[in-house]
């Protein structure tokens, strides 16, 4: 087995870097600056708060947020109240959840696209 343990990503998150938050909010798909790349790697590899995924309710049209259970033979937890009409809206929502999990600070910027 390859070792890709979630706790291997340890780039420190600086809660004062609202510029990186703004860079991501403007362009969730990138390309991103080096520092934002590192912040995103930390968020995506570690995925604090649970392994977020999207379920394509209607491929290309509608996505629902879910969480992987961390073991097989247990269902993906689907969050029926978090449904998006664009991947960018979902990316921003998950970014906010992870930012808060890593820094303890909630982001209040409005979602894009919604």
């Amino acid at each position: 087995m390859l070792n890709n343990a979630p706790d291997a990503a340890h780039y420190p998150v600086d809660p004062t870097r609202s510029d990186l938050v703004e860079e991501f909010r403007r362009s969730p798909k990138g390309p991103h600056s080096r520092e934002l790349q590192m912040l995103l790697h930390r968020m995506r590899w570690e995925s604090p708060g649970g392994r977020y995924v999207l379920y394509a309710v209607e491929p290309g049209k509608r996505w629902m947020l879910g969480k992987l259970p961390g073991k097989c033979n247990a269902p993906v937890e689907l969050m029926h109240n978090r449904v998006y009409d664009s991947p960018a809206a979902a990316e921003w929502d998950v970014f906010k959840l992870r930012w808060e999990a890593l820094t303890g600070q909630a982001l209040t910027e409005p979602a894009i696209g919604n």
Partner: protein
Amino acid sequence: MRLGGIDTTSVLGYAWPPVVEPGGRVAFHLSSATLKQVDLSLVRVRCGDPDAAGPGLKAVPIASAIDGKRAVRHQPLRPGSCAVIADRPVLRGIDSFSVGAFIWPTLPGVAAQTILARWRDGAGWRFGLDAGGHLELAICDGKAVVVARTSQPALGREWLFVCGSYDARTGTLSVRQVSLDPQAGRDRTASGTASAAPGLRWIADAPLMIAAQAIGEANFDGKIDRPRLCRGAIDAAAMRALCEAINPPAGDADLIAAWDFSIDIPGQTVRDRSANRLHGELVQIPARGVTGANWDGTANDWRALPAHYGAIHFCSDDMQDAGWSPDFTLDIPADLRGGYYALRMTAQPADGDPVDSYVGFFVRTPRTAPKAKLAIIVPLATYLAYANGALRMDQVHAESMLEGLLVLSRDDLYLQVHREVGLSTYDTHADGSGWRVSSAKRPILNMRPRCNTFNYGNDTHLIDWLEEKGIDYDVVSDEDLHRDGLAALSPYRCVMTLSHPEYYSREMWDAIDAYQRSGGRHMYLGGNGFYWRIAFHRDLPGVIEVRRDVTGVRTWEGEAGEAHLAFTGESAGLWRSNGRAPQRLVGVGFDAQVFDRSAGYRRMPDGENPRVAWMFAGIAPGEMIGDFGARNGGAAGLEIDRADPELGSPPAMLLVASADRIGYGGMPAPEEFRTFHRGLDGEQNARVRADLVYFPTAKGGGVFSTGSIAWVTALSHNRYDNNVSRLMENVVKRFIDPAPLD
């Protein structure tokens, strides 16, 4: 279940055989846990990918005898590999007995596991591990179970000698385990005894089972090496001697069985060296050709020293033959065109989403009646290698690789909770070992319309394009290439390999090579092709074996000493490590993955060479090629290949275009660098790129390669009016023209 969207999993099935000729017959094996009835139809798959960025789902109904409503039933799956030794007279009337083996448990302490048993309807005996990982011998006369067990749980991935006995004179039941490496805290040597009734006899009419108590019950996870069974209660030292001996004296009248798993490793029979010849049949294809307790690194190839490869690695989740009864058959009309086909199953349950589920299969062109000048090669080996991949959900790297959230389909939600369908060769078993074998005799969720787009879905973009352009083509599959060799291709002036012909047996490679050398024309329209060296099974159709070694983009690594295929003994791993880099065959070879965004190709100086003017007819010299496409906006993406003369790209090759501006999401394959340093990603590293190449071969043949999986997904852009489509038309036209290429 109502989730919104379309339910693709409430009824599943498989077609057998997966590739059929017109005039042949295909059987459909279906199961549904929830539906009682489905509407059936046959469809010809023109595009299986519903993504609106591409051609969209195009499944053309074909009237057939199976049209209409049909009842479906639930057919369970019983995963877990084991060996079954049929009941024989020699197994009757035994009272005292002893068992022994070397074991390397990989998942001790999770559930009860069986090493050897003769057990039926709650009676008999079972030698194995209990749910806590302790060695135990249980005996039961149908009323009371008596168990002798050790106090020490087995350690995972450490060899133990284990033995047990029942003495019918005294009723004493005993077990003993001995750690082969007892130092540094690893010692689990321990014994246990219990008192059962004296005079118990073996039950009748039950098979002897290795690695399971019965099919799908109390299966073993890990290796079992040299299991022995004998009459009389012998002590641990005497049993140890029997287990150490590769070939115990067959004249020993008390020796009931001494299995040697190193005999005929490619086969599915386990051989008993005792005079009783209690041979058994393997179920669900466990891994053979694996290192035994006595393996010491003297040999890395089981053919060189089989005695060190007397183990089998069983897994409780091995699944290669669903064993479902067929529901009905379809006689393939003699005039049905070769292509991608599927059984479509629909339903509208009152309490759920609309069901639209498919069983994919392929119709090949009759061997004796080739029609077109062009043939496509259906990459069955790739579909099998990727069958039911769940890796994205099990390992954390997917989101980083995609530079975005993982998007799951309804099929993924199903796989997450239904691992019993058997996973892909990218996945790891519950015990952490890699899936080495894949078979088509089970539902394959990602080899049918509406499936996750990789491979099957992408390949149908090419089918759609051929139909759109009215280009006639015949159909050949990987397995035809493997079993028939060059004869499968020689009727054709041109053949196409599709978006991801990654898994190649030696026979398949040799067929393509011989074809190219005999004047054939090959359009390789994908990326990461000709990468892993695999084998098809000698006797079982629709079954491949993959072994991942210590290089290549590998999602697991095999154990030391296990890099040779059990099916053939050949060295596995990458073709590049086997003296055949893909560059030598098709000009380009795998260099990187890029899953976040795709790029276009720019014309290179060779692209202006008059020798290839025909290729660029209708395309302006400065035009970027394929800076569009359904997969991340470019024709160069996902997995990409580059030319390299040092790896065998031929001197006569023209590098006509190159996508060498891949962003930081482009990461080189491990075999592409020897030492780590900054700057390896595609933003900084020009070796992360997709090359478009052409070269002539012997006798007027030629090769055209695109070096990118995303290539075919650009074909339908702008209603098929684009330069990828134009270039492809130019190449097809020239490649089916008999005039020699230069």
